[in-house]
């Protein structure tokens, strides 16, 4: 059996690893457009910060591919798939398959504003990006971060730790507007401000100013702020350019409960896959490491022919800045039609979002112990009869 995997990150690697466990003799090939062995994409900001070294970013041992007999083909960007002939084409080669996993991930959204192509404007997605940012940051004093999402904040953290002044421009009235409610976002923001980050909420960038490189950023309120370096964190879009009628898949490749796509012998997993969201009860892309890794594992089980139902994804995030932890999962912002329990004690904050007796989402700030039990309650859909005892600290 010939297994082919497009993508060498969480979904791709966990799939390859599981395939090898389940099928000791099958041929496993992994294609990546990057020049690296598997690394932790979410570690790039820690790398910028100097918290970890470059070798620590690689999350598997050096002999990982050899030991598991996985053929890793680096710098092979997929350009086309012929589903009839069961062939994947890269710029240089073609690869045939019996079973294919599309785990091509996503790429950072770029801005199309005046000046957005100036040198010094970055997105943070790959190790290459991180290295470029780190190099460039050595001559930067002041950075502007556009967007208030997790990647933006982590990038800002990395630059701040390198002694660069950071200003974060957020279009919403709060940071992390996809993940947290206002109260939790306020707590996280306060903590970051204490460390020296500056926030401009309800503002957006109008244009980037500079000649041979970015120099200033002009905001919608007319204000112009100095920026030697700009980091754009406006979310990600799935990598689907190589698919026929790619525009149809701009919101991800829809998969069934077995993570099968509509093409025969083709599965999809990770940031490119539109899976069933347990909390929201509908199909959506939850582009997060834990979801991707689990989907990779489940897809592999199905690729060898054992039927394994994927239990569904959950939007869940864990963030840690300067010792202050926040974990949130499921529905956290919407309150209408739900029963909401909120408790606050100093820097500790708890929010439970229930639909009837079923937990649909939660936020924990400060003390986060036992968060996984709440995640499990969302997953299992069990009824909650009484306030969970492990949360009694509130």
């Amino acid at each position, binding site marked *: 059996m010939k297994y082919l995997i497009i993508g060498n990150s969480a979904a791709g690697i966990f799939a390859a690893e599981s395939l090898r466990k389940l099928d000791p003799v099958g041929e496993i090939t992994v294609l990546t457009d990057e020049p690296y062995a598997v690394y*932790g994409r979410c570690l790039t900001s820690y790398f910028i910060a100097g918290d970890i070294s470059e070798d*620590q970013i690689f999350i*598997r041992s050096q002999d990982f591919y050899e030991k598991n007999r996985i053929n890793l083909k680096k710098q092979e960007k997929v350009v086309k798939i012929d589903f009839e002939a069961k062939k994947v084409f890269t710029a240089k080669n073609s690869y045939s398959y019996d079973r294919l996993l599309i785990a091509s991930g996503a790429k950072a959204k770029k801005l199309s504003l005046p000046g957005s192509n100036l040198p010094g404007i970055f997105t943070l997605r790959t190790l290459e990006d991180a290295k470029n940012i780190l190099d460039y940051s050595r001559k930067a004093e002041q950075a502007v971060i556009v967007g208030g999402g997790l990647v933006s904040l982590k990038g800002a953290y990395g630059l701040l730790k390198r002694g660069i002044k950071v200003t974060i421009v957020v279009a919403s009235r709060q940071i992390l507007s996809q993940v947290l409610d206002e109260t939790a976002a306020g707590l996280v923001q306060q903590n970051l401000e204490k460390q020296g980050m500056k926030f401009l909420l309800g503002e957006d960038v109008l244009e980037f100013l500079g000649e041979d490189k970015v120099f200033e950023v002009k905001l919608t309120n007319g204000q112009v702020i100095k920026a030697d370096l700009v980091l754009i964190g406006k979310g990600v879009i799935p990598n689907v350019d190589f698919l026929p009628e790619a525009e149809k898949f701009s919101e991800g490749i829809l998969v069934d409960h077995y993570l099968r796509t509509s093409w025969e012998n083709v599965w999809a997993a990770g940031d490119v896959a539109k899976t069933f969201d347990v909390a929201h009860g509908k199909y959506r892309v939850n582009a997060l490491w834990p979801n991707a890794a689990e989907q990779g594992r489940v897809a592999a089980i199905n690729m060898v022919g054992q039927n394994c139902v994927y239990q569904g994804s959950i939007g*869940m995030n864990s963030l*840690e800045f300067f*010792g202050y932890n926040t974990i949130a999962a499921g529905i956290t912002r919407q309150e209408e039609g739900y029963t909401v329990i909120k408790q606050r004690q100093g820097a500790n904050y708890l929010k439970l979002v229930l639909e009837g007796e079923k937990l649909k989402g939660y936020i924990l700030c400060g003390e*986060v*112990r036992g*968060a996984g*039990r709440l995640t499990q309650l969302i997953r299992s859909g069990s009824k909650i009869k009484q306030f969970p005892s492990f949360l009694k600290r509130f």
Partner: protein
Amino acid sequence: MREILVDLEKCLGCKTCELACATAHSKEKNFFAAIFEEPKPVRRIFVEADGSTNFPLTCRHCEDAPCVTACMSGALTKDELTGEVVLNSQRCIGCFMCVMVCPFGVIVENQRKAAKCDRCAEIGYPQCVLACPTKALSFIEVPVYAKKERKKYLTNFLVKE
């Protein structure tokens, strides 16, 4: 492979295991020294109570461990030989994704990194098991434990007759 197993009928909820655990993971490995250590040693076993039932909960070393899939730094791995879920603190960056997904809630924070039951790898034998005054905890092979349980059941059954 040996597991830390619990006899629910014997657990009184005295939390001696919690103390022994924290002590085993302290610098001095001595209770009276450990209580004065800063930062305070952290326990990795938690006695949960539900009415009359007490249950000491610790890492179950899951087959398809959610913490291993969630770990983005490669710190958590499943040892295929021993079946143990192993945490390499050197690699841990304290993102607490594992805390977010552990369905038993037994991964905790210790000095801004994750901490969990390592079956007292440093000492060589789980100290909670040694410390348990009622022998509610045991560290044995599952089939041996199952045999013991079957025997107990039959004895009780015969006695009742």
